[in-house]
């Protein structure tokens, strides 16, 4: 187990190293830091002097080592637009994105388990067929279209819910403002969370259903039935417990994927999170911010995947560690 852990962590470090290399390559080739600093009105001599001073004439390896050293100290450069350290800009936007992901996860967990179990228990019921049909339609609708549809119906049509922004947030501490503390905040987060959840929900319903149907065929469930245990206890205590392992594994990986979908959701709802900021940074060619986003998101991906793999190895004794760790 320890060897597996060490291998997995080394792999994570390797991937982060490659990401930092890509980040540096982008920073090196995209835009001119001098023009951002001094504009057009400086003579060529002063420019050369500044280049030398900033170390822009150094060799690639030297510049990269400096970039990596700064990055390890949490210095990912200064945003051209905000004139602030890029990491600070991102960390300020992070809570908004995390709350959105949290809201969506809450919806997915609360809906996918009962729906998945129900469709597995009664596969031929009309409601189950309806849910399965709806799930394939749900997979086929891109997340931005769901979001637009919701805005059109609930904001433009009925005027029930606000269509953009975070609304009235409550300050918690540091950079963290929460949407979950008052009614206005909740009203603002409902639609973005549902839109974000809509892409994953069908996937989880189908996954839980498939796993559940397999477990319900197994000997121990038959035995539990024979013992006369009440059906709901068999379904929700005995069977569900054993379906959760693959669900948690897929879920952990999907949380990383959800970060990608937050870009789409945040764009439609103008949600002031990381994804929205990233697209603005792209439009402004704000290189340090683009690179910082790449590294922060890469970090989130690598950490979630490593943790999920480790949990999987820990929880499931039947997994051959040799295969996973080789």
């Amino acid at each position, binding site marked *: 187990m320890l060897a597996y852990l060490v291998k997995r962590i080394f792999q994570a470090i390797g991937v982060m190293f490659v990401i930092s290399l890509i980040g540096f390559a982008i920073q090196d080739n995209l835009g001119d830091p001098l023009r951002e600093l001094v504009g057009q009105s400086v003579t060529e001599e002063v420019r050369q002097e500044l280049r030398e001073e900033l170390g822009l004439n150094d060799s690639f390896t030297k510049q990269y080592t400096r970039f990596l050293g700064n990055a390890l100290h949490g210095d990912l450069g200064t945003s051209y637009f905000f004139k602030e350290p890029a990491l600070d800009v991102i960390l300020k936007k992070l809570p908004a994105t995390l709350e959105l992901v949290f809201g969506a996860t809450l919806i997915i967990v609360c809906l996918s388990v009962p729906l998945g179990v129900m469709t597995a228990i009664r596969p031929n019921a009309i409601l189950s067929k309806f849910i399965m049909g709806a799930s*394939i339609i749900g997979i086929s*609708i891109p997340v931005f279209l769901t979001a637009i549809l919701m805005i059109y119906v609930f904001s433009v049509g009925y005027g029930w819910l606000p269509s953009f922004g975070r609304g009235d947030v409550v300050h918690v501490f540091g950079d963290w403002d929460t949407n979950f503390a008052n009614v206005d905040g909740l009203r603002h987060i409902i639609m973005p969370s549902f839109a974000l959840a809509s892409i994953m929900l069908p996937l989880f319903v189908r996954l839980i259903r498939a796993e559940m149907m397999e477990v319900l065929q197994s000997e121990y469930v038959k035995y539990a039935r024979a013992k006369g245990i009440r059906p709901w206890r068999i379904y929700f205590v005995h069977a569900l417990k054993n379906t959760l392992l693959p669900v948690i594994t897929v879920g952990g990986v999907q949380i990383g994927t959800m970060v990608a979908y937050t870009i789409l959701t945040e*764009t439609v709802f103008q949600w002031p999170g990381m994804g929205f900021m990233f697209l603005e940074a792209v439009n402004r060619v704000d290189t340090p911010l683009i690179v910082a986003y790449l590294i922060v998101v890469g970090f989130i991906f690598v950490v979630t995947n490593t943790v999920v793999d480790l949990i999987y190895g820990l929880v499931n004794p039947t997994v051959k560690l040799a295969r996973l760790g080789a």
Partner: protein
Amino acid sequence: MSILNTIPEPSRWSRIKKSKIGYSFRSNPVAVVSMCIFVCITIMALLAPLIAPFDPYDPAQIDIMNSEYPPVWIDGADPQFLFGTDDQGRDLWSTILYGTRLSLMIGLCAVTLQAVIGISIGLISGYVGGRLDSLLMRLADIQLSFSTLMVAIIFLAVAQAMFGSELFSRYAIYFLIAVIGVSEWPQYARTVRATVLAEKKKEYVDSARVLGFGPLRIMVRHILPNSLSPIFVISTVQVANAIISEASLSFLGLGMPPSQPSLGSLISSGFDYIFSGSWWITAIPGVVLVVLVLVINLLGDWLRDVLNPKLHKG
């Protein structure tokens, strides 16, 4: 005897019709309807230059004064525009036809690219085995752990910032195909590798080896034809996903430009007008996109059930 011998060889078409797949197709109304819709959309998209009443790429045929006419069944419409016009005064029906053609083309080309890369890597990985196999599969794991959309967004964003939006939009179609094609190869590689590992142990491979055929010939001519059914199954899902990815990227402004819109960029340009009540610019391309992806997914579901009876529906 001679009478018996004269029974004609069944034609290829009737052989397909009588096969297991053909029977299951005919007895499954969802598959038949999906296939009909898919074929209709594809043919209309392919024939777009012939059936579209206007050419949306020709600036001479666009008049800004015609912008935002509603579809014909709503008051205030101009009868020459069936589905109304978009914000630039283009006929929506023609633009959707051309856009569907682009979306389909990008989806199919991207999946072809995925398949070529993924199948080659999967074959090599499964057949050669050893260190090369574990290295390639490790790479596939890492690639899979990053979502395609994320990789595509970052790649296209950097490309757009690097080349400038004018140059980028001229070559956007190639960028899209390349990025969607490259970032999804592990799906194919893993599936192909798994089947190759199973096929490799069979006797026909041994006999081919004994006959002295080279590894390339065995891989391509012997093992590959026997691994085709899982490839077909994932291909349908991959085409649907590629079309959604393309639409999402175009929606973010990282794909096809508004002057040459795919379904995604059309929806995106309509989104700016949704608050002023011009819902049709978003809704009609949206419906086309969803129907297209839905029928491909339904066909994929059906194909998976037929070719993989052991698998659960789910």
